[in-house]
């Protein structure tokens, strides 16, 4: 099987001036990232995440082992042409303005002036910096710099996107937008390697994760597999009368199971976005108004993002097809069955930021409870037949245990919409 990124006992030891080994940053790392996968590299500070990325990209040379990236070497310009990289901080030329910055990177890729111009405009739109495109990036806030950094990583419409802590310094809305963007890009067949210690971000977007500690992989696998609490069940419904609750309690008591009934809490992120959206609707005059309009711009761009990305993709298809054709053919048959359910779920999730229908967004968010408070169900043991008796209509679900979570969110959607 072909991997987008594969490392073979990759090791990096930093030595001091006398050549004595000081720090083992990456230790015998074997990483396999499939094509069209959103892979999260997690770990506490100093666990070797960034070093791994630098080794992959040829910014550092491994002490031992090697890595294969898109079937080649990470320092090879041909491979580089298909990679987008966002370093841990957006290291930009302070004296260039946003548009010039993107133009500079576009020219390094050797993009023709027309393509460059088109991509720059749509990227500026997408990251919401069109209004400040002529300001030197040295005057940008950290979040704005982050956005321009992300834009430069996308200028070549990369097949593989390597993002080192993409959401640091961004406000919650920006974070959300980046996460949505990652999902959208994944839908479009990009491979994304994400490096972060912000667990919420990783959890929302990643298909698979690996947790690094001391330069070694401590855990690796699908997010759902790793997080699934197989012995617990969660019921999410809309309005339920007290009698119904009592009856459920009765049934559960008969089953000798303990339960707790609460109203699910909103995610703070959702609440924040909701609040800002309300303020925006009322057009409250604040000094923060600048940022809210920016969000508006960006959200608008987000809905047209499809077109932009389509344009981006179509612009390079003819150029890159001959090189990629054999690979994609190999990948598709193996990946499709895995991706299918995800896509539905992701599109459902991403729909939430559609600005055209702000109200459904909020309602959806309210219901989308997912693993909101796992603690509330800690001592609850729900057997499957009870669930069936309760809901009646989900008999076929027995056959698809794996889809349980996804269906849950679907029922949630249906229930409240």
């Amino acid at each position, binding site marked *: 099987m072909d991997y987008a990124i594969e490392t073979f006992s990759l090791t990096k030891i930093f030595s001091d001036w006398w050549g004595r080994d000081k720090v083992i940053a990456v230790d015998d790392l074997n990483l396999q990232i499939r094509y069209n996968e959103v892979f999260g590299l997690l770990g506490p500070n100093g666990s070797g995440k960034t070093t791994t990325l630098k080794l992959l990209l040829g*910014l550092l040379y491994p002490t031992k082992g090697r890595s294969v990236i898109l079937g080649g070497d990470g320092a090879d310009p041909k491979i580089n042409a298909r990679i987008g990289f966002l370093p841990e901080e957006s290291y930009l030329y302070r004296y*260039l303005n946003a548009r010039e910055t993107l133009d500079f990177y576009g020219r*390094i890729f050797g993009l023709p002036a027309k393509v460059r111009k088109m991509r720059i405009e749509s990227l500026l739109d997408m990251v919401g910096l069109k209004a400040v495109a002529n300001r030197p990036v040295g005057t940008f806030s950290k979040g704005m710099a982050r956005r321009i950094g992300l834009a430069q990583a996308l200028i070549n419409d990369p097949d593989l996107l390597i993002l080192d802590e993409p959401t640091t310094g961004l406000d919650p809305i920006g974070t959300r937008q980046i996460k949505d963007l990652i999902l959208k890009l994944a839908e479009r067949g990009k491979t994304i390697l994400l490096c972060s210690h912000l667990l919420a971000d990783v959890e929302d977007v990643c298909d698979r994760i690996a947790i690094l500690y001391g330069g070694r992989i401590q855990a690796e696998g699908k997010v759902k597999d790793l997080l699934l609490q197989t012995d617990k069940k969660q019921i999410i419904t809309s309005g339920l009368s007290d009698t119904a609750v009592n009856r459920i309690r009765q049934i559960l008591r008969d089953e000798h199971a303990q339960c707790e009934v609460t109203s699910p809490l909103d995610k703070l992120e959702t609440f924040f976005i909701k609040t800002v959206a309300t303020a925006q609707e009322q057009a409250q005059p604040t000094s923060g108004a600048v940022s809210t309009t920016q969000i508006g711009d960006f959200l608008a761009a987000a809905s047209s993002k499809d077109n932009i990305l389509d344009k981006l993709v179509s612009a390079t298809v003819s150029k890159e097809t001959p090189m990629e054709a054999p690979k994609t053919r190999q990948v598709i048959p193996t990946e499709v069955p895995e991706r299918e359910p995800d896509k539905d779920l992701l599109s459902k999730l991403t729909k939430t930021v559609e600005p055209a229908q702000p109200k459904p967004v909020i309602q959806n968010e309210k219901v989308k409870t997912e693993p909101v408070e796992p603690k509330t169900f800690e001592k609850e043991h729900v057997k499957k037949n009870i669930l069936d008796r309760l809901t009646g209509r989900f008999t076929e679900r027995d056959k698809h245990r794996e889809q349980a979570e996804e269906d849950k969110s679907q029922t949630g959607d249906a229930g409240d919409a």
Partner: protein
Amino acid sequence: MRSIWAVATNTIRQALRLKIAAAFIILLLILLPVMGVSVTGDGTLKGRLQTFISYGLSLTSILLCLLTIVVSAYSLTSDIKQRQIYTVITKPIRRFQFLLGKLLGVALLDIALLFLFSIIIYGIAVFMPRFYNATVTELTEVNNEFYTARADLAPPDIDVSKEVEEVYNKLKKAGQLPETMSYNEIIKQLTSVTKLERRAVAPGYILPMLFTGIKPIDPNESLFIRFKYDVAVTPTDSQIIGRWQVGDYRQIRYGEKSDTPIYDATYKHSVRTIHEIEVPASVVPADGRLCVAFTNPPINNTVVFFPIEDGLEVLYKADTFTGNFVRAVLLICFRLVFLASLGILAASFLSFPVAILFCLVIFFTATFSNFVIESFNFLGRNLSSVYSYTVKPVIQLLPQFDKFNPTKFLIPARLLSWILVAKAAAFMVCIKSLLLLLIALLIFSFKEIAKIIV
């Protein structure tokens, strides 16, 4: 190529927008015109012009050299230190392309600035006579001795080694050799004495000297005999009368009839100062073999001789001032290219302040390269083999800015030949800069970009 160009333009932007170049540019833009107005030299128009061109070009050269060092070193080290290089080098650009882009950017910036300032200097130099209401004599003087490019020819070097050998042997037999001097030193001294004897004229005698390969660009222009008298006994009024004949060698020496006229004049000149006699260029025969004959009339009553260094030269107009100026600017340009490569090399393995220091040391050593080379030669003569295989090659690698100093040619309006320019190009650009660049490429290609060295 596109990526090289992208890096180059970005480097130029960096230099301009971060105002690294601003101080230098403003300083020059103010200083050059001020200098044009304020220089006086020795009070004459020629003096003003010479002072202006000397100070103007030297100042431009030194400021641009410093600018080059700063920009080339800063551009690369800041990219590494501020880590913009992470996002650039992970794009499809090879490391050598990145370095070449930096070099190209610095070189282009240099060339543009050099062009701008040399135009200003040229303009001021050419229009200066108009500002000063110069007299006709002064104008003729500057036309002949400043706004021109004169080739200079010294009389052919005579081989005196045989005579020297004889004298040496004679002295040795007589046991009169000084004991404190080495063989080489004795020979050296004898040679210079013998050579000087050949350039001495007793009263009543004539000294004909042959100059070959003289090719003035225009027969209507003038030749100049540039000379300095030295005498055995100084006359009471310190003046020497001399008869000068200039023309076809065969006619003066052997009395054969020639097509070209013979210049014949007698002058009175003071001793131990440089004088020039103007001779119409039409006296030069077609084969370029010119004879300059000096007759020492008996009335002088002393032996007259012409010092070896600058005793006698023939100057003739071989090119225009403009041509000479362009070549002078080219010499500065080569200097800048060398320094740009040096800056890039230093930045490829040093941090900014150290790189600057490194470059400045090389720059100043190169400016006084003659002195440095001679000092080392002097110190190294006792450990010849060790010296010639270790320090000497390294010293030879230094560029010789003083050897290719353009003002040395522009002030006395001497022809700066294309051959010299080509030599400078070959040594400074083709060999030394390329070598530096190759080393820089090697270092940079194998360097771990993201490695933090503490």
